[in-house]
């Protein structure tokens, strides 16, 4: 709760800083500072919380556990890392720099809500608080028509899915008379009310929009491609992970008891997502667009955490979310240094700048799930959760085949960097940026060797 309040207050501060300060660099420094403060508040909240404690606030509308606080902390840290890595590119996007940073704080508020809601009203507000700023961020490059188009598309799709989400909530309310997600009484009934099933289906569809799962993924490539690149990085990572925590929280808290009736639907969605994301990513010529499709594919893997109902899946989601976020942020940070976003733009990077090529290799390895990187451990946890589920072996094997396909397009970047010749245009790297990239790459490897760092005992 402290973090939610702090994030709101800091967002307002950030907004005013945007009015008062004109120098963009200063705004960036202020944003970094405020994010660090927010991270501090998160850590403080984590430390002051007793092990195993569950704090229920406002008549059980929020239940804050150590897990949710830990997740919030990780997301805040990821945002801080994001701002550190790409701050200089964020301030180049448009004129309203202070406002953009304020929007990040608002998105964090939404994330905090989604990690600890216990009432569907809070969930709904959390999703909207995450979504509306993202529509704005997508359209923030006003000189560029593609950005405006991305924004419009995102808005229409988002609003449409909100409508579906609300219908789902309403149907479930109609069947149970309850908005509190831990009080739904499905088990007491002799048979499952069809209204509940329809409601769950609507919720699945709506969340599929938010996390860009097939067949509701079609907006993703255009939106991610059109949005200003730094904001694409944010939407594809932290925005997506936040939607996932809401998804898993709702489905595993309240619908776990009727899981046999919806896991099959979700398993098919997962398979479709993996298929569409990976196969279409193969045919892309632009790395940015490839990353957009690969983010669909990665969402397919993250869906495993929702499909398989066990304590392991929450851990898997944390690891996957963080691993994917870090690696993708790293790739985007490198991408922003290049002038040409196609695969050919990477040609000969290893010769021209071995440092950039080296860190990119680590990020690519992580995304492709090569051992000793965080991405591998993430996939491992997900698959373990799914195998434990028992009847999902077909999905696991399909996912592994798709992971091999993903190696194909990820390795195209490596082939371009190391084995092709070219003269890539690179903008100058400052020492601090180098340091941060090294730090990110190290993080990827450390988490690949010791993933339990992300899951300390007692969360």
């Amino acid at each position, binding site marked *: 709760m402290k973090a939610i309040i702090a994030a709101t207050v800091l967002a307002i501060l950030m907004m005013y800083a945007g009015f008062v300060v004109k120098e963009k660099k200063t705004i960036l420094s202020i944003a970094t500072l405020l994010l660090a403060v927010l991270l501090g508040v998160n850590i403080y909240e984590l430390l002051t919380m007793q092990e195993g404690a569950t704090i229920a606030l406002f008549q059980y509308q929020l239940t804050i556990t150590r897990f949710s606080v830990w997740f919030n902390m990780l997301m805040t840290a990821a945002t801080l890392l994001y701002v550190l890595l790409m701050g200089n590119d964020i301030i180049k996007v448009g004129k309203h720099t202070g406002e953009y940073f304020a929007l990040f704080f608002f998105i964090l508020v939404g994330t905090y809500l989604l990690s600890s809601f216990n009432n569907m009203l809070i969930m709904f507000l959390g999703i*909207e608080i995450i979504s*509306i700023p993202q529509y*704005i961020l997508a359209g923030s490059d006003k000189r560029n028509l593609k950005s405006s188009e991305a*924004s419009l598309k995102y*808005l229409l799709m988002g609003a449409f899915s909100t*409508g579906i989400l609300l*219908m789902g909530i*309403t149907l479930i309310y*109609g069947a149970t008379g309850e*908005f509190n997600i831990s009080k739904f009484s499905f088990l007491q009934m002799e048979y499952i009310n069809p209204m509940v099933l329809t409601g769950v289906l609507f919720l699945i569809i709506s969340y599929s929009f938010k996390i860009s799962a097939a067949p509701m993924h079609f907006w993703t490539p255009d939106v991610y491609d059109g949005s200003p690149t730094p904001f694409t990085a944010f939407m594809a990572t932290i925005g997506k992970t936040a939607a996932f925590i809401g998804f898993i929280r709702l489905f595993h808290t309240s619908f776990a008891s009727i899981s046999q009736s919806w896991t099959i639907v979700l398993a098919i969605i997962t398979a479709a997502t993996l298929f569409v994301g990976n196969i279409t990513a193969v045919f892309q010529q632009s790395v940015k667009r490839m990353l957009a499709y690969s983010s669909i594919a990665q969402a397919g893997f993250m869906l495993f955490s929702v499909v398989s109902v066990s304590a392991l899946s929450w851990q898997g989601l944390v690891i996957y979310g963080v691993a994917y976020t870090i690696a993708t942020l790293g790739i985007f940070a490198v991408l922003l240094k290049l002038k040409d976003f196609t695969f050919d733009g990477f040609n000969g990077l290893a010769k021209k700048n071995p440092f950039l090529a080296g860190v990119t290799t680590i990020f690519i390895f992580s995304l492709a799930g090569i051992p000793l990187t965080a991405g591998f451990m993430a996939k491992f946890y997900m698959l373990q959760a799914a195998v434990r589920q028992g009847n999902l072996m077909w999905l696991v094997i399909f996912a592994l085949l798709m992971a091999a396909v993903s190696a194909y397009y990820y390795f195209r970047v490596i082939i371009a960097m190391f084995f092709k010749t070219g003269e890539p245009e690179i903008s100058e790297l400052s020492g601090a940026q180098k340091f941060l990239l090294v730090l990110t790459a190290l993080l990827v490897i450390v988490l690949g060797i010791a993933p339990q760092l992300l899951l300390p005992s007692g969360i």
Partner: protein
Amino acid sequence: MPIQYYLFLSLALFCIGVMGALMRRNAIIIFMSIELMLNAVNLLLAAFSKMYNDSAAQIFVFFIMVVAAAEVAVGLAIIVMVYRKVHSVDVNILNRLKH
């Protein structure tokens, strides 16, 4: 009045909204269709609220209206921004511009 009637009515409105969102090319009309969907939900919630004699659902409706208002504010701003550039709000034209 059985609750089914309200259920059918609001689902009908909802599906008309879905149809509108799928059929039309004008971004504003699509947006209006989505508003129609939200209103269908509101109506259903109000009916359930009466059925369960629970005012929480009406509070929920209230919040849906709040969110809808916020979304409309942002949405219309985005639509106007797009219109300024291409002098059209036709989603098909936008798709064509991409290629």
